């Protein structure tokens, strides 16, 4: 499989997972949250600082439909990660010698 096709296929899988699959993910607390609750330090968690992001808690501000709200936040998160990560790695890469 060529580079571009492989990358696009991988990105499509990531977008589908975040945009569609995440709706079907377990909503139970994760391991740390569960252990914190059970052993009695769960209440020491503070509410997260409001950074003004419209995607807090993987929901999209102003979108009422659960499936759409989570899906848009997921796709936005994948996009932001790709943009920041991809930009960083592209800037860091060794340049091929020109010959």
């Amino acid at each position, binding site marked *: 499989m060529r580079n571009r096709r492989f990358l696009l296929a991988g990105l499509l899988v990531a977008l589908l997972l975040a945009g569609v699959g995440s709706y079907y*993910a377990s909503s139970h607390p994760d391991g*740390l949250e569960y252990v914190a609750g059970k052993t009695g330090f769960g209440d020491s968690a503070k509410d997260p600082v409001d950074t003004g992001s419209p995607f807090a*808690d993987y929901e999209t501000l102003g979108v009422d439909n659960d499936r759409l709200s989570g899906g848009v936040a997921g796709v936005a998160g994948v996009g932001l990660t790709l943009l920041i990560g991809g930009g960083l790695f592209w800037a860091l890469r060794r340049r091929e010698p020109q010959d």
Partner: protein
Amino acid sequence: MHVPDGFLDAPTSVATGVVAAAGVGIALRRARAELDDRTAPMAGLVAAFVFAGQMINFPVGAGTSGHLLGGALAAVLVGPWTGALCISVVLLVQSLFMADGGLTALGTNITLMGLVGVVVGYAVFRLVLVVLPRKLGSVPVAAALGALVSVPAAATVFTLLFAIGGTADVSVGKVLAAMVGWHVVIGIGEAVVTGLVVSAVIASRPDLVHGARGLARRTALRTGEVAA
């Protein structure tokens, strides 16, 4: 395993912030050797994939869930230094945009998942690879075992930090037993996902898998010719 604000006191959070900054600083310098025109886009994809994978919580019983941490996966696919940066970028996006993992806990989360998860996952991967037959098929197995160990390792280091700077007065022994117990189970999920994803990439592009270097020589050359 995203640590929220408040679990750990300020001095501990500052200390893990320093550790995270140092680790990321070293990774920024060393990742250069792992990144070129071909692998840099792959690394961006791996970061995006880990973000997506972390959204998929799978049930592990008794009202608990787990999700991919991705440290071992990223390290095997794009190299340990770049892998640590992938996880750090994911955690940065999550805390800045998703309110997932506290801002003051970002250093803690990078230390646990970006550094401990990656270092332990990659170290176990390398060790297992020495024992297994030198063939491509060994890579997903070794990656899965690295993933399996990386999750309880990160959980153990969290408990250590909690023992030092936890704000709640709770028995550390109880926290350790519960953290390690549950995260061994979550680690099995991490191992399955990591093994499957690494095998899928190896099946289509073994030359793009950092951890398969030297094993994929013949295929890599052939693919290189086609791609060029």
